[in-house]
């Protein structure tokens, strides 16, 4: 009986789309998901190697090539192991079965007596053998996945679930040309763009002829407020671009709001407001605040976060070549197939005339400048036919123009009865859109260059995401069992600052608010915050991660504090915990943070963190730990230090001095504990620590100082003002 195929496989059922046995006894595995530094190539190769009984070293992963790889849309939302992984498991199982049948015929041996070792198929009693490569002999499968073959059961796995060396790191640790900026093609030339000083500026004049006369300059492209230059060498293009910058005249039309007003702007501006029921927005009127009569405790609190940057260490880049009306594009876009359509729309081309190939850039996890740089490169390439153009953004281009994670306001209110049970729960999320990726649609576009062209394509009107845990409402529905809850998303369509998807979308802000508020409720009612949570959790797997994290954190704290406490009298120590299940259906995470607050400088120093996670069946345990810990550190950096600054003119966070992030001396030790459930499906986890981390820090600061921080980032001045208010 055939089973339902995994969605990615149902959409791309040809085995040849996924697997190709190469000449040198290797296998090329193709996926539509792309490497962002998350180690996805390794995890997917492990799944494939497991099913086909191959050594990991025999697998080459080719990803994100629009002409040969399966179309899997975006690499986003912590879905690659679940989506591409389950497709690859099934397709590999079917390929193995097919090869075994071929081998049984060739070796004249019963199917069930064959043994496979690293792609070599043997019939032990006759000692006859063959290999996958002999059986395929350069042929294609010409087969469609049927769903009739079952993959191996998890208890027989030899490779999946073990620690392996990542397949892509050797090249990176030996200085090989692996990143987009390292690409080098014959006759390649160099491109730069010159963006306006701010969102509200338009180009008045550029003195393009002066630039064209500079050494090596091949093309100066000015289209409305889009300006770019191509030159033979990188030094020539930098000189030309800087000259352009010096000579350009801009006019400004309007002013940005004052940054200190941004949260008031969000709560007072007209919005599209929708109730969220079980994680899903519904088109119904917004109900009144829920309250119970005779509540023992009623508490309300407002939490805020600023705009956050992705801040990849390598600014965006792309290579494009325009030849005979077609484009080749090498890009670090998270959605090669999607960006292809969106670029085709702007350039009035057929999508099939653009061939996009994914090449890595520095990691950041979200919609940074990658897609914009791709269109920039294509436009510059069209101005110099037959010459590949390597377009690089500067640090300032990236900082000032990437789409940021939106500022948010979270308003919570709840009632407790006399037994400490939550009897009413209200959560209002206010934000600009979290979904600003360029997706081909109508006559609008989400590319900077499309907005700036002389015949501009306007930004689309922001629409409320209606998907389950899809946008700002991701994780706004608490995982706790609550009798009555009222959860509302308020999408403020007018957006003075460019925003889009950062790691976790709304989950970061929503979980920060929920898990801070759970602490506040517990303290107000005189209850232990962890017991209070457990009282409202029914899922045993959730309870297990909370308890595991607390036990491990307690042991670590005894160890760490014994050393630390004696030697610093100006330190106030604190501990905090927070829990969330990502999208209420993915990875379970509890984060415990131990920190100290310097009572003289009001600086917060993280000492140690424990992350306990249940991601179902673990494919690549070291990769999973790396993701969970990396997410914790990124989130800690957002929470303690980061805020995109701007004035009425434009963005003022234009480098790492004006947008500081967590540095090596500020990194705490971190323990990651994985609660493996090989019998359960794998659960998306790459964004799962973003939310709990922020609240665990806030709760630990409260434990240390009695001060409740509700406005991210927790810079020393926030602690000082909280202290002044508490007097």
């Amino acid at each position, binding site marked *: 009986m055939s089973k339902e195929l995994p969605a990615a496989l149902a959409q791309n059922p040809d085995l040849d789309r996924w697997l190709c046995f190469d000449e040198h006894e290797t296998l090329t595995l193709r996926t539509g998901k792309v490497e962002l530094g998350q180690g996805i190539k390794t995890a997917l190769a492990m799944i494939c190697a497991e099913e086909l009984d191959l050594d990991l070293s025999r697998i080459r992963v080719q990803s994100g090539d629009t002409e040969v790889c399966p179309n899997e849309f975006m690499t986003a939302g912590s879905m690659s192991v679940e989506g591409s992984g389950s497709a690859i498991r099934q397709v590999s199982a079917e390929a193995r079965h097919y090869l075994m049948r071929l081998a049984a015929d060739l070796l004249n041996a019963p199917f069930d007596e064959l043994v496979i070792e690293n792609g070599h198929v043997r019939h032990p009693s006759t000692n006859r053998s063959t290999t996958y490569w002999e059986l395929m002999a350069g042929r294609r499968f010409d087969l469609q996945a049927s769903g009739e073959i079952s993959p191996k059961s998890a208890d027989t796995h030899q490779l999946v679930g073990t620690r392996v060396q990542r397949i892509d790191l050797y090249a990176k640790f030996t200085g090989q*040309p692996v990143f987009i900026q390292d690409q080098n093609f014959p006759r390649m030339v160099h491109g730069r763009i010159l963006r306006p000083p701010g969102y509200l500026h338009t180009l008045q004049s550029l003195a393009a002829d002066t630039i064209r006369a500079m050494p090596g300059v091949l093309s100066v492209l000015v289209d409305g407020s889009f300006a770019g230059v191509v030159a033979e060498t990188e030094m020539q293009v*930098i000189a030309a671009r800087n000259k352009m910058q010096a000579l350009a005249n801009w006019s400004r039309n309007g002013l940005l709001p004052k940054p200190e007003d941004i949260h008031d702007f969000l709560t007072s501006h007209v919005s599209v407001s929708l109730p969220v029921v079980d994680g899903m927005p519904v088109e119904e009127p917004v109900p009144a605040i829920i309250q119970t009569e005779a509540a023992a405790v009623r508490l309300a609190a407002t939490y805020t976060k600023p705009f956050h940057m992705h801040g990849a260490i390598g600014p965006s880049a792309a290579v494009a070549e325009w030849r005979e009306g077609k484009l080749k594009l090498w890009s670090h876009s998270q959605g090669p197939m999607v960006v292809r359509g969106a670029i085709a729309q702007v350039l009035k081309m057929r999508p099939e005339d653009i061939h996009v190939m994914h090449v890595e850039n520095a*990691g950041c996890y979200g919609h940074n400048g990658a897609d914009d740089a791709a269109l920039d490169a294509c436009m510059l390439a069209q101005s110099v036919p037959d010459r590949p153009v390597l377009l690089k953004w500067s640090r*300032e281009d990236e900082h000032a123009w990437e789409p940021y994670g939106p500022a948010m306001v979270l308003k919570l209110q709840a009632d407790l009865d006399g037994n400490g049970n939550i009897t009413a729960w209200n959560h209002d999320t206010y934000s600009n859109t979290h979904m600003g990726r360029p997706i081909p649609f109508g006559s609008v576009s989400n590319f900077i260059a499309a907005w700036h062209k002389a015949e501009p394509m306007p930004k689309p009107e922001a629409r409320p995401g209606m998907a389950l845990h899809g946008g700002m409402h991701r994780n706004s529905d608490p995982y706790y069992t609550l009798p009555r809850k009222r959860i509302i998303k308020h999408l403020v369509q007018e957006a003075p600052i460019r925003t889009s998807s950062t790691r976790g979308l709304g989950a970061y802000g929503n979980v920060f608010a929920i898990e801070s508020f759970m602490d506040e409720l517990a303290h107000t009612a005189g209850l232990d915050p962890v017991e209070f949570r457990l009282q409202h959790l029914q899922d045993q797997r959730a309870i297990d991660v909370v308890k595991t994290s607390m036990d491990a954190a307690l042991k670590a704290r005894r160890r760490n504090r014994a050393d630390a406490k004696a030697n610093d009298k100006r330190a106030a120590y604190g501990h905090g915990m927070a829990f969330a299940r990502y999208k209420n259906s993915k990875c379970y995470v509890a984060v415990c943070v131990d920190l100290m607050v310097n009572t003289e400088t009001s600086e917060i120093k993280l000492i140690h963190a424990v992350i306990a996670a249940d991601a179902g069946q673990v494919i690549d345990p070291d990769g999973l730990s790396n993701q969970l810990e990396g997410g914790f550190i990124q989130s800690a950096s957002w929470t303690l230090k980061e805020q995109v600054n701007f004035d009425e003119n434009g963005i003022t966070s234009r480098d790492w001095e004006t947008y500081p992030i967590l540095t*090596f001396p500020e990194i705490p030790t971190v323990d990651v504990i994985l609660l493996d459930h090989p019998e359960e499906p794998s659960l998306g986890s790459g964004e799962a620590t973003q939310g709990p981390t922020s609240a665990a820090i806030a709760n630990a600061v409260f434990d240390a100082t009695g001060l409740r921080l509700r406005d991210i980032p927790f810079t020393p001045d926030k602690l000082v003002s909280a202290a002044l208010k508490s007097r």
Partner: protein
Amino acid sequence: MAIKLIFPEHQFAMTDAHAGGLKELKFVVNGKSRAIRIDPGTPLLYILRNELGLCSPRYGCGSEQCGACKVIVDGKMGFACTLTAEELDGCDIRTLEGLAVDGSLHVLQQAFLAENAAQCGYCASGIIMTAALLLEENQAPSRSEIQQALVGNLCRCGAHNRIIQAIQRAAQELSIE
């Protein structure tokens, strides 16, 4: 209204001082003597990447803020993004490509592999070079000494602890040898 951007990619190119005039400069890169004719204002980063085909030093910020371009110059840490050709005449320069000897990886490279000490790996070259210099000066660095040595290296993926562990592992390997 004319508004000047702050922090252009490279201030040096704003001036006309380096507009013409190539100069022959000599230096040693990864043990090999090199002589190139180049605009003396060219930053080392572009010489290494574009003239010598060494792409391990990476552009991150152009202003000594992120450390992705760090290399060792005459036994000291150098930011390839701001050091110019004329400052380097006669210097000895080491990049990640020069760490492996006769095809066998440096103990740091081995340790980084063993610890899977990266996510995207973009910052890895600058970090490994900083660690190489640290281990030459301090054979048994503590965790906080390693953290201090890397204060000028940013990592956005959050691989810091693995990186620290890899450096400690390399130090242990060296002490056994």
